[in-house]
């Protein structure tokens, strides 16, 4: 991981660590923090806790996203500190964000103190926002070398005003107008997967998110896997291949590299971690302390996992649910 990030992720890059709830590569995000990258533009549909941590650590100057929350828990507090920034706080205590499961994490941010996590972490954070389908469409336009992606969304909303890159486009078959989003071509896309072979041909099962589109759109691709398998394993089931080795620049084997997100069939989402992040991240000091302990204080994912402890790891192992097997037939 250290080499892959050192070689392939550069200051000022647009970086997409994709994976919708599933297969979020926290291990790569933490390595980027350890290597002190700066001025990154971070793209993801859901910035999630990983970008909250990266923003807190000062690696980012801009976010491109569609849903900014801690899924199932509340807001992303480090990011919100950078966005709500200098404003005077007022009591928003009873506004219900669509994020919130209960009536707890409701937008109150009065815990704001000195950010103290370096100047890069407290300067204003630029936001460029879309909807989920808009973000997927941006990757798809980037991946398929199109100047725009058309979609039926944004009608009669304030989003095109907030983001002038969301534009109208007229159909050449009559007067109908839909909206368009521009291509997004990350400098680097990082995806996590169940398995890949040494060439980087990668297979995923479970939620597929938009990893394929984000990877094909990128200039450089890093694949991080739970398990390196023989090429024959990949070739035995070609329909499961999401990304071919052709577009992959580095394959990193990093078991448990997606924790606290999850890997279908391998480990569960660590919901407790997502819940715990909320109080930690409400305070700049405790956020910093967490980063010191769990990111900068470890050499890499192996040490992180060890620190997490075997009990926690074991508690996240699911039961078995085998897919069954199909036959491709041997034709010669």
């Amino acid at each position: 991981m250290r080499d892959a990030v050192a070689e392939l992720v550069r200051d000022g890059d647009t970086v997409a660590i994709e994976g919708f709830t599933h297969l979020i590569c926290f291990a790569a995000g933490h390595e980027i923090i350890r290597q002190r990258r700066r001025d990154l533009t971070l793209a993801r549909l859901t910035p999630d806790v990983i970008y909250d941590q990266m923003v807190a650590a000062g690696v980012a100057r801009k976010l491109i996203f569609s849903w900014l929350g801690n899924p199932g828990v509340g807001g992303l507090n480090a990011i919100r500190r950078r966005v709500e920034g200098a404003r005077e706080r007022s009591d928003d205590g009873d506004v219900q964000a669509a994020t919130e499961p209960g009536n707890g994490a409701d937008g109150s941010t009065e815990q704001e103190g000195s950010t103290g996590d370096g100047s890069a972490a407290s300067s204003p954070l630029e936001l460029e926002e879309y909807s989920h389908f808009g973000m997927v469409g941006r990757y798809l336009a980037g991946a398929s070398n199109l100047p725009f992606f058309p979609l039926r969304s944004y009608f009669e909303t304030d989003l095109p005003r907030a983001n002038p890159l969301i534009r109208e486009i007229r159909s050449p078959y009559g007067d109908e107008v839909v909206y368009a989003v521009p291509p997004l071509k990350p400098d680097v896309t990082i995806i996590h997967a169940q398995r890949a072979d040494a060439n980087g041909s990668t297979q995923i099962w479970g939620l597929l998110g938009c990893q394929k589109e984000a990877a094909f759109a990128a200039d450089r691709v890093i694949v991080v896997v739970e398990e390196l398998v023989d090429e024959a394993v990949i070739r035995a089931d070609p329909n499961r291949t999401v990304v071919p080795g052709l577009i992959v620049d580095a394959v990193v084997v990093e078991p448990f590299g997606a924790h606290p997100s999850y890997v279908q069939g391998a480990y569960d989402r660590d919901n407790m971690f997502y819940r715990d992040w909320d109080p930690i991240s409400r305070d700049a000091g405790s956020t910093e302390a967490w980063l010191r302990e769990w990111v900068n204080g470890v050499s890499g994912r192996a040490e992180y996992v060890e620190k997490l402890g075997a009990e926690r790891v074991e508690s996240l192992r699911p039961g078995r649910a085998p897919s069954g097997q199909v036959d491709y037939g041997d034709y010669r």
Partner: protein
Amino acid sequence: MTTPAGGRAEGVQGGFTKNEMMIVAAARELAGQRVCFVGVGLPNIAVNLAKRTVAPDLELVYEAGVFGARPARLPLSIGDPTIVTGATAATSMYELFALYLQGGLIDVGFLGAAQIDRFGNINTTVIGDYEAPRTRLPGSGGACEIAINARQVFVIMRQATRSFVERIDFRTSAGNLGGAETAERIRREQGWLGRGPSVVVTDLGIYHFDASGEMRLDWLHPGVTLDDVHAAMAWEPKVAESVGTTAQPTAEELRLIREELDPTGAYTKG
């Protein structure tokens, strides 16, 4: 299952919270529906309760890329592994949004909201000015496209003067715009598949939309008065000629929420 399907049947011994009442009422609204796109937050528990009670055949669609989910537990996040295992189909988000949602296969889009106005327009983006927000909310996610492309939209949210507002700070998802007439014209002109919002369930009662496209209070939850409702919204609401009282949660509904769906009380406390 012993729950009366979709009915407002007589309630049950024992207390229940306002949130439990809201979730139960929202779930019951799904009786008879076929395909539901499950939004993040409160919709998630309401829809999962409906699937276990009034709408066992309901097909759950998650924007994460799942059709026909059968969650064995309540997914905390709407991208939880339990929505995949045993589902009918797991697909890319592109295909989910393009073929299922935009293609017109969703009967009900079930959304939460931070602010709503009388015409069901929704804000989940910012409180205050967009450029310098007082509170930065999560944004659209899939909501703005769900609002346009799902055949109808259900909303579940707690009610307060700050959330039921005269004018939302940012329109993230279109409802009935400035009223039914405008909304109908624009939907026709722009080829929307959706007919917009049809029900809003809160911790105080249940609203549907009248011919003018405005929210109308049809049901009050047990123990809630019209004064309570007035105190918790910024405009003077239309009220049905005879407002009913929502049936209390049944023992089975409460058991499902408390024992199966939300044992930690994340959604239902308060």
